[in-house]
């Protein structure tokens, strides 16, 4: 084969290759140069929503107005909604069966509309129904009706608020739930601390103890029917379990030292707590049926504030075994403890999210107390709020909202309860009769 023929073949091969590449590129090009806009970096903004009074005849009218008010307050406190002023509504008499004039609602920028009715039934119960409308699409998004006793109107409103919240955010609701907390009254140097329970919006406060002894760290059982807490009854600090309905209480185990920081396991069968003996504090579990105790840690350190993962397979707790107070995660049987927080800050009061994806904590750094979240593997730490004194986070049942207590400074200052959305938006104070601290959120009631 002569040299000229060889060169010719090389050129032909190169031409074929180039043609193939060109064809491939042309085939991969988009068929059209359509205008495309990428919308990224959005902000979580509260959604404008219109909630007219539920329509009712006669005496039911007041109840209809009250139900709408509770729904509005629930949604507003979540930080994700802005209920619009009813005085701006131009379509009157919005009942569950009325078809909205959507232009009237879009004119006031209402992106969603909740229209409902309430009526007393011959059997004494009330029937409440509502429809959720997408005003800009002109479509119904949800519609339900309920029958209940008139006394339950407030809880009924929470259930409707949950339905609206779920439909518009994609998250489970959390308004039909309760909070147990430590009510603090009296002067700052002589506070009376007693346990109290209320609806998550601060209504229906009821005291569980009389304040004779100081009680701390109440925590709900998975059924919401019992709480476990620490009491200084007769100057002997120990852990108790209290049945909310019957008022019956009993100590958890008989330990030689001080027991504290109790919390139920997700199945409600065990209580995990700290036992202080001498200079050491370690974690133990007590099986509520067999009364068998199991030691989980044995360090010359303070291990406390344990919290189970939702599936019960792991435990997060705080420990100063490394010199400063940090968060550790271990298996539920006490094996494989490993540290998940590092740095100069100190981390306290970890609580595992009901969804399992995050752990809430209190962080102390530079004289400030912050509430934050971190993934169980120690990554993704995020601070939601920081200030003079924020402490004691607890998760709403949907794992989306955190409640904590914030101390105000000064002689007349004291702890108050606050909520915040996981996005860091929507911080709101919860009204309580007195100062309040150490909240614990119940699971959903139904």
């Amino acid at each position, binding site marked *: 084969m002569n040299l000229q023929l060889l060169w010719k073949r090389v050129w032909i091969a190169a031409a074929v290759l180039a043609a193939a590449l060109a064809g491939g590129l042309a085939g991969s090009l988009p068929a059209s*140069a359509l*205008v495309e*806009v990428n919308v990224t970096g959005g902000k979580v903004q509260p959604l404008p929503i219109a909630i007219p009074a539920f329509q009712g005849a006669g005496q039911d009218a007041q109840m209809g107005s009250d139900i709408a008010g509770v729904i509005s307050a629930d949604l507003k406190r979540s930080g994700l909604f802005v209920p619009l002023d009813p005085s701006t509504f131009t379509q009157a008499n919005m009942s569950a069966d009325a078809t909205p004039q959507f232009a009237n609602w879009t004119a006031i920028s209402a992106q969603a509309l909740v229209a409902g009715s309430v009526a007393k039934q011959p*059997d004494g119960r009330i029937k409440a129904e509502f429809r959720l409308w997408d005003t*800009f*699409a002109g479509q119904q998004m949800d519609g339900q009706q*309920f029958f209940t006793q008139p006394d339950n109107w407030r809880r009924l409103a929470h259930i409707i608020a949950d339905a609206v919240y779920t439909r518009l955010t*994609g998250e489970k609701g959390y308004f039909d739930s309760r909070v147990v907390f430590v009510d603090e009254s009296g002067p700052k140097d002589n506070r009376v601390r007693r346990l109290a329970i209320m609806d998550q919006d601060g209504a229906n406060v009821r005291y569980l103890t009389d304040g004779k002894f100081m009680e701390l760290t109440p925590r709900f059982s998975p059924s919401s029917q019992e709480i476990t807490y620490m009491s200084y009854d007769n100057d002997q600090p120990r852990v108790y379990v209290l049945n909310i*309905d019957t008022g019956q209480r009993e100590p958890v185990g008989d330990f030689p030292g001080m027991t504290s920081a109790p919390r139920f396991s997700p199945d409600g069968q065990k209580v995990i707590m700290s036992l202080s003996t001498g200079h050491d504090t370690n974690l133990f579990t007590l099986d509520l049926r067999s009364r068998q105790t199991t030691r989980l840690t044995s360090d010359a350190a303070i291990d406390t504030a344990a919290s189970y993962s939702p599936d019960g397979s792991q435990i997060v707790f705080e420990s100063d075994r490394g010199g400063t107070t940090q968060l550790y995660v271990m298996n539920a049987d006490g094996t494989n403890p490993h540290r998940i927080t590092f740095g100069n800050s100190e981390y306290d009061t970890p609580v595992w999210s009901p969804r399992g994806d995050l752990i809430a904590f209190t962080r102390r750094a530079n004289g400030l107390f912050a509430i934050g979240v971190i993934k169980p593997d120690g990554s993704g730490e995020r601070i939601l709020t920081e200030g003079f004194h924020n402490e004691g986070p607890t998760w709403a049942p949907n794992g989306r909202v955190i409640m904590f207590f914030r101390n105000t400074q000064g002689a007349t200052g004291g702890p108050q309860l606050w909520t915040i959305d996981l*996005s860091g938006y929507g911080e709101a104070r919860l009204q309580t009769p007195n100062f309040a601290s150490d909240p614990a959120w119940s699971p959903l009631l139904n």
Partner: protein
Amino acid sequence: MAMRVGLIVSVAAHVAIIAWGFISLPWPKPIDASDIEQIPVDFVTIADDTKITKGLKTADVVADRPTPPPPADKAEDAPPLPKPSPQPDPTPAPPPPPPPPPDPTPPPPTPQPDPTPPPPQDTPPAPSPDATAPPPPDPTPTPPQPLKDVPLPHIRPTPPKPKPPSPTPPQDNTQQEMDQIATLLDQSKPAPSTTDTTPPTDDKQTVGSVTGLDAPTLTASELDALKSKILSCFHPPPGWADSQDGDVVLMLDLNQDGTLSDAPSVVQTPQGQYSNTATESASRAVRLCQPYDMLSADKYDVWKQVRVVFKPSDVGGA
């Protein structure tokens, strides 16, 4: 000593070379820093002349383009014939009437005996509202049970009823016969004339399409303005950002005044928990933000259809 002589010679030679360079090489001419009269200039683009869009068969027909004169060898002006009957009507047929809306009144429930209630407790109760269907008169209280999935019949906006076709006026028999004859004559296509230079009827001339090569596009500023406006109306579900559910993609058909000509069509929805809520939030945003009057009417062909991709990344608190 010899080393010292060599050094002297070397230094002398280097000095000589440098001196020669100074003498023989030309000095650079100093830059003339005198004032120059400033003349305003305009940048003129010839893109309008050179960017010719590629024609497409499916693009819009130029309505006002003069039609070519009829060929010379056409026999005579025949009376206009109706279109061949087998040709489908290019105008879309009216949609079939929607199914009648459901009756807003709830269906009568089938009476069911309530389960026996639990023993009454005098402790603070947490009774759930009863999740029964609409009311059979039941004197006994139903037990506490979660109330869910009791959907009311949906009330949907009643769509406008399709107008019945307007009655055609009666035609006289002569005209009817003429039409029948014309239909018969039109059964076969006439053979194309050898001198007919007009393009076939399905190859209509167009002004090109935005999908053609070298088509004009929106500038970066115009795209940013459009994005900012949509973003200002967007209330994404707060949990969507942390999820792996994916993007929402909508296709917008716009009128020349920037309003939506139709409901935004959903091209892609996220997969998972936020599928509905993210898609609905995006649809609400584009509806709420119209009209998009920041877009130049001159480029309407470019933006009459816009694809909007809503991404969950970087969604944060306000």
